[in-house]
């Protein structure tokens, strides 16, 4: 079996991927933005 995604619906698969990555990406982006905001003090 050589398959990247298989035979499932492509549209629903993309939606699942977007939701999954948003689920972890949004909190991570929030945390990173908080650190960047504090890090700016170094350059002032």
């Amino acid at each position, binding site marked *: 079996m050589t398959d*990247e995604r298989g035979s499932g619906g492509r549209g629903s*698969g993309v939606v699942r991927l977007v939701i999954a990555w948003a689920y*972890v990406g949004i909190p991570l982006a929030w*945390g990173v933005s908080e*650190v960047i905001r504090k890090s700016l003090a170094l350059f002032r």
Partner: protein
Amino acid sequence: MLDRSRIIATPGYSRWLVPPAALAIHLCIGQAYAFSVFNKPLTTLIGLTSPAPADWELATVGWTFSLAIVFLGLSAFTFGHWLEDAGPRKAMFASASCFGGGFLVGALGVWTHQFWLVLLGYGVIGGIGLGLGYISPVSTLIKWFPDRPGMATGMAIMGFGGGAMIGSPLGVALMNRFKSPTSMGVWEAWVVMGLAYFTFMMFGAFTVRLPAPGWRPAGWTPPAVPKKLVTSANVDVNEAIKTPQFWLLWGVLCLNVTAGIGVLGQASPMIQEMFPGVITPAAAAGFVGLLSLANMAGRFIWSSASDKIGRKATYMIFFGLGAALYASVPTSGHLGNVVLFVSLFVVILTMYGGGFATIPAYLRDMFGTMHVGAIHGRLLTAWSVAGVLGPVLVNYIRKYLIDHGVAAKDAYSATMYLMAVLLVGGFLCNISVRAVDPKHHFAEPAPGAAGPGAGATPAVARS
């Protein structure tokens, strides 16, 4: 529901769902590195505005984090073999239960002001959750990404670095939300965090899948001629620890982490003392934040690069370039060049994070996929040792020098040269790594042992 046999992927499952599943675990357990936000509030639970005689001392509270890291190493060592049989979903579920449950038991300890309950909850139970969670997605990711194992595991381990960035502001925000004239808001924050982290981690547990036996990525075939240091065989976890390669990689990880932890622990006072009157405490805090970002980014960048240039070459860069950069730090301090100083440490910290993230793929190259999660678990004892060794070396040597009349600024120079020497030791360990002697290889061929898609651990006797 949790069994390994129930999570074999069906056609239509995208392997790109596995990294977010792994990240859901690592982003939560990475909170451990943000535990320090609770240190001060935990010392004023009774006095509220200032420590009362019955309050816990800061040094006492500090044991909570240390115990959690010790149990991270112990549980990764102990449960790695179980994890390979149980599968990632059961391991992730157990991790979430321990990590979330640890918060709840710890909250009970804070509420009743019983410190042993805090140690048992966050330190022991939570620490076991840390170890299980840290290693749970590793072998699964390697099986799904035989073409890019470094990138895949690097992405997950990057999440551990990112977890502190979420856990720190989250902890502060929750304590502020629950703070009242009668409470510091700690136990309330821990209850919310325990429940929230458990729920968040369930996404990982119920999203992760194992590839079906024989699965491989579209368009990818295992190389006909394996690279020199990439085996197509497998080594049992109990056999792996008898090989010199395991202990050389143990030294590689330990020395890389020792050097990095030593710097991270003193980053804030170091930059202020090396540039007196130039760097304010707020700017120093910004420096620490920048190092955290470099640490996290390095985990993804270097582990991905290792797929192209090879694991051994990647660690050669870490140790060779790292030693040169550490040795250059005192010069940048003497020149008064803040930009150069910060730049040096940003690069150094990317390599510190890269060292953590590239090691699972290095282990896979040396020992195969069969027990890579369990072998990684055993190797993490190097982290536990480095976690003690790094700060002790740096702090004691610095104190010794200052006690003998060396200026604080120059004492930092000595510790930087010491870190460079440690990295030279790591360089020597890494250069000594050779392919594992075939006498250590697993005797019977494992299904899918050539790398891709070993959906189930071979049901053959292990030594």
